[in-house]
């Protein structure tokens, strides 16, 4: 199971037809201290590149875009009480949502780790 990355700085980890989605460590570093996360409702239909969640740092609010089209099946409730989890474990415990994706071809449009690291460094 490999992790893929979007140009909007989300990561995607796929198991079967379920994708776990979060923001990258690079993104959390740029945001700074996260103080609030607004997660989508279970059952919400999201489309690739569309709004999926909101993450607010001390500085500003930022949109989190859906890297894949599908339906939200689970959200990380731990973020409600402890939004700083995004800073401590952006690419682990700080995941945002699980999406049952409907178009596997969209996975091919995402970057692998090496390509993402290069994208960020550019």
């Amino acid at each position, binding site marked *: 199971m490999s992790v893929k990355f979007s140009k909007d700085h989300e990561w995607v980890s796929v198991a079967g037809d379920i994708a776990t989605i979060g923001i990258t460590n690079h993104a959390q570093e740029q945001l*700074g*201290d996260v*103080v*609030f996360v*607004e997660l989508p409702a279970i059952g919400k239909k999201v489309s690739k590149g569309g709004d999926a969640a*909101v993450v*607010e740092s*001390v*500085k*500003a*609010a930022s949109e989190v875009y859906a890297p894949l089209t599908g339906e939200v099946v689970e959200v990380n409730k731990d973020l*409600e009480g402890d*939004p700083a989890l995004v800073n401590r474990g952006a690419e682990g415990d700080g995941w945002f949502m699980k999406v049952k994706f409907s178009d596997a071809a969209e996975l091919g449009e995402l970057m692998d780790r090496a390509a993402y690291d290069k994208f960020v460094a550019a």
Partner: protein
Amino acid sequence: MTVETLHRTALYAQHESLGAKLVPFAGYEMPVQYPTGILAEHNWTRTYAGLFDVSHMGQGFVVGPDHATTAAAMQAIVPADIAALKPHQIRYSQFLNEQGGILDDLMITRFANDGWLYIVCNASRKTHDFTHIEKHLPAGVKLQRSKHMSLLALQGPKAECVLAKLDPAAASIPFMHYAALKLDGIVAHVSRSGYTGEDGFEISVTDHDAPRLWSLLLADADVKPIGLGARDSLRLEAGLCLYGHDIDETTSPVEADLLWSIQKRRRSEGGFVGAARVLAEIKNGPSRKRVGIKPEGRAPAREGTVVTDTAGRVIGTITSGGFGPTANGPVAMGYVESAFATVGTAVHLIVREKPMPAMVTSLPFIPHNYKR
């Protein structure tokens, strides 16, 4: 991309070596945060002592033959009672336009030299302010813009103890007063004032001495460098206005809830630029007022957020809003129609197109910890 030449303060190298994130601010390249981040810097300042480089701010002297003459000249352009200032005393005031709108807010100190007033104004407004002052000064009273002067702010409950190690006289400066101190040989004009709601000092020294004083203060285990990010969250929790956001040329000091800064004699006598509106609003009440607003949930409401009544009618706007680390939740301030300005009034904030319940609250969010 246009290449803008950004000014640097005398402490630029210090910020760089501390690993600060430097951003353009009011024409200067300023530290917005150091590696520990805004939350940690905010909390450090509320617990120990934070050191801020605020050298971008405007400093100057208004100089006349004696206090009465200089004070009269200054009172023509600010609503505060300057004539009544005692030697070494500081007052907060505003420059107003003819329509009573705020051109800038500033600190005015009656300096030790008779006939000298020391002023500190906002970086973004200093060029405008200095022109405005010069335009209004009568013959015999002159403005001296301070050049090559830095300004450091040391803020927090440990500030007194830290500064007193360098000059014990620091401890006996009363709140909103200044004294000339010698900090390890460095001549410094030290004001007991600040922009965080905490006890603390604002220290004016030459650019030449600034790096040594900065290092001297940072050498104290109770002191850490604090950037503009935490400066903003600290002042927001303290209910203090940020020019260009909470106050501007459209807002009057009465609307901005700054009437406390207009002393009694001036409220009855007027005699300052913009007095007509100010006196009328004192008499009849302003149509809108700056208030504190506490969102009920965890989501911050940012500047520009629309405020409605509980039925959805627009009644105002948020002018500053974010997360208050000490308040441990979202905090905001803004203007609402006066009928909704009573503490405890329920309002809605339109965040991402959804109404979010909030309450009009008294300011500050965190009690001021001034040394009275």
